[in-house]
């Protein structure tokens, strides 16, 4: 059974590239363009891992992570945050909110894939 990964990023191109890479590796992908959009899609589907950006309009990544941790059916989902080197404080905040893994931007798809594979193999 293929594992499903949700990618949350406001950049459509980013979602596209990551999505192609993930599908190529054998994952199912659900895309969302911000935290709110993502939350609305977290219902009735099995999600094995969430990859989320931090800086997003409407609902930022940290608020999103906090919200996920309140959802009965998704609260234990591993979350990889996409951070930049400069966002050390945000990284801390994301960690406290419940995201324990991260990938530093910019990255090549293989880097993200490797990080994901440690948490969920396809």
């Amino acid at each position, binding site marked *: 059974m293929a594992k499903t990964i949700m990618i949350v990023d406001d950049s459509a191109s980013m979602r596209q590239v990551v999505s192609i890479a993930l599908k190529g590796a054998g994952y199912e992908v659900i895309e969302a363009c911000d935290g709110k959009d993502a939350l609305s899609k977290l219902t009735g589907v099995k999600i094995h891992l969430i990859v989320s950006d931090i800086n997003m309009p409407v609902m930022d990544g940290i608020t999103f992570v906090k919200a996920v941790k309140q959802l009965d059916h998704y609260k234990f989902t591993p979350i990889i945050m996409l951070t930049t080197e400069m966002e050390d404080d945000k990284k801390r905040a994301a960690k406290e909110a419940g995201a*324990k893994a991260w990938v530093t931007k910019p990255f090549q798809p293989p880097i993200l894939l490797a990080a994901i594979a440690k948490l969920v193999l396809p």
Partner: protein
Amino acid sequence: MSDMNPALETFSQEVDELLTAMEEALLGLEGAPDDADCINSIFRAMHTIKGSSGLFGFDDVVAFTHEAETVLDRVRNGERLIDAELISVLLACKDHTAQLIQHVLFNEGEPLPEALQQQNQALIVRLTGAPAAGGMPSTQEEKADHFEVDPNTSNSSDNWVISLAFKKDALRNGMDPLSFIRYLQTLGKIIEVIITMPALPRIEDMVPEDCYLNFKIAFNSSADKKTIEDVFEFAEDDCDIHILPPNSRQEHYVQLLANLPEDQVKRLGEMLVEIGALTEKEVANTLHEQREDDDAEAKPLGERLVEKNILQQPVIEQALKKQEAVKQKINKESNYIRVDAAKLGYLINLVGELVISGAAMRLMVDKHGLSDVDDVASTMSHLVEDIRDTALQLRMVQIGETFTRFQRVVHDVSKELGKQIQLQITGGESELDKTVVEKINDPLTHLVRNSLDHGIESPEVRVRAGKPEKGTIQLNAYHDSGRIVIQISDDGKGLDPERIVAKAIAKGLIKPDQVLSKSEIYSLIFEPGLSTKEEASNLSGRGVGMDVVKRNIEALRGSVSVDSELGQGTSVTIHLPLTLAIIDGFMVEAQQERYIIPLSMVEECVEMNSDEWQIDDVQHYVNLRGQVLPYLRLGDFFHNNKKHTRTQRESLVVVRFGEAKAGFVVDELHGENQTVIKPLGKLFENLDGIGGATVLGSGDVALILDVQGLIHHAKKRANPALALLSGV
């Protein structure tokens, strides 16, 4: 086994406990054959020993305990009844297992001895009721099947041992241990896994969302430690991770450690990270724990690493050994400290002042006849003397480095000239003041190039002259009476006296009828404008060199002389003071004026007794024990216009410079005295016969005599013929 690795020690203890529990349970079964607790305890003993032995690659133990485990599993499932016979067999199995463990722990890698083999077989027969088909090989096979041991990786002692202790919240944080272990599989082969749940509470209190799992994984992989650690990158907050490298790595690490460059002392952690035995994370964590430990006797890093099963003892030992070796090496190297030359100069100046004020004190002590202070003053002046010597030593460097630099020059120039020349260096360890070394470099270069250019002939010429094809230039240095002597000699064509004389006459330096000694002729080459070669080479230039060389050397209170044998070679000898700062002086007085003669040049002092010595007052020489000695009255020399008044008693100070000797007539001898040379101002730079001045303790100024110059004067005044007799 004193060097048993800690994991093995733990294993050994664990086995002891398990076997003891097994024995108790077996004895308990005799009374109550159906006691499930007892049966479980026996099963657990065999099961756990099998698992741990697999981790360490103790295949014999695995094979045997597997048989016992299988039987016990059947007992547990009620498929086989426990009876007195089985209990006694299992007791024997327990003893046998202990023996097997002893064997593998203390005879690592050795096959089982015959007796144990037979016992092994016999017990298996008694356990299973039938001989294991084919004996040991079959159990091996079964074992291989069971553990899925790849034949290529069958050396299971060559496994990484990864210990993972997950924390309570790991699962809640989305860190599923299974995910990491799955990913681990992409890097190699999981050989064995032992799962323990040491913190598992009573079932009623167990929270399913909490994580109680601890894993010990035998992992076969060629990946490096960092890569394996990175698998658990995201788990590090939720898991205690220990990665113990396989034994083969251990040897690899020891090798790598031995090959580490020894250029700087590194901390233990740094070295181990560099060779990949340790990851930065492990170092950081272990150091952090070390800091956390309030214990006054915090354990060193190495000990902690071994204790925590992060690294094996031998690797740590090798690292510590290496560290010590590097430390010693660096220490040896760091015996040298780079000091700003200006600071050293200042120190030496201060020491100079100290010497002067020491002399002042001495004077006051003598003046006031303070006999009780005398001892103290003496001690102090000794100390000051030592300080002075030591301070000057600080600035002493070996001349070898200067000499060695000429190797390159000789090599390059001889090639350019089409000559074969070798440079021989001796006495490179002779020391002299750095300031002198710096200033001697130019004159030396000139002299060496002279030898290269004009001295050594081309190979053809040399062969025709019956000399070896290859010419030799020698640089030699040695100490002589407080001075350093540097010789530059070659086995070249030597100086031609006739040509020098001819040239000197042509230049008007000497008169055609003048009779000169050989050494006088040779010293003519130091006269300005005299070059022995008509055509100037681009290396040593036109004869402007030698007079400059001479001037430079004399500016250092040194002297230069040349000796040569036509067709045999030339030798230039340079005398230099060891230092320019302080000299041991000998103080004399003439015409109420004090003079310092460098002590090293004072041969002897005799009473100027007109009866005893045949004093020739006109020609200014004395016959000193049969030796003709030119002399100079210092009072007359420096106070030419003053009519000098003879004191009752005069002294003759016999001085020597190189080969030349002369006598200075003085009124009074004041004895030895440490003299700090204060250079004279520009105005007096060219004063004849004066090399410098010094301030006396009394505040008076004494002139330091330029002995070489004065000897020259003395000879001039004396009969020239006599002067020649005494050389130079």
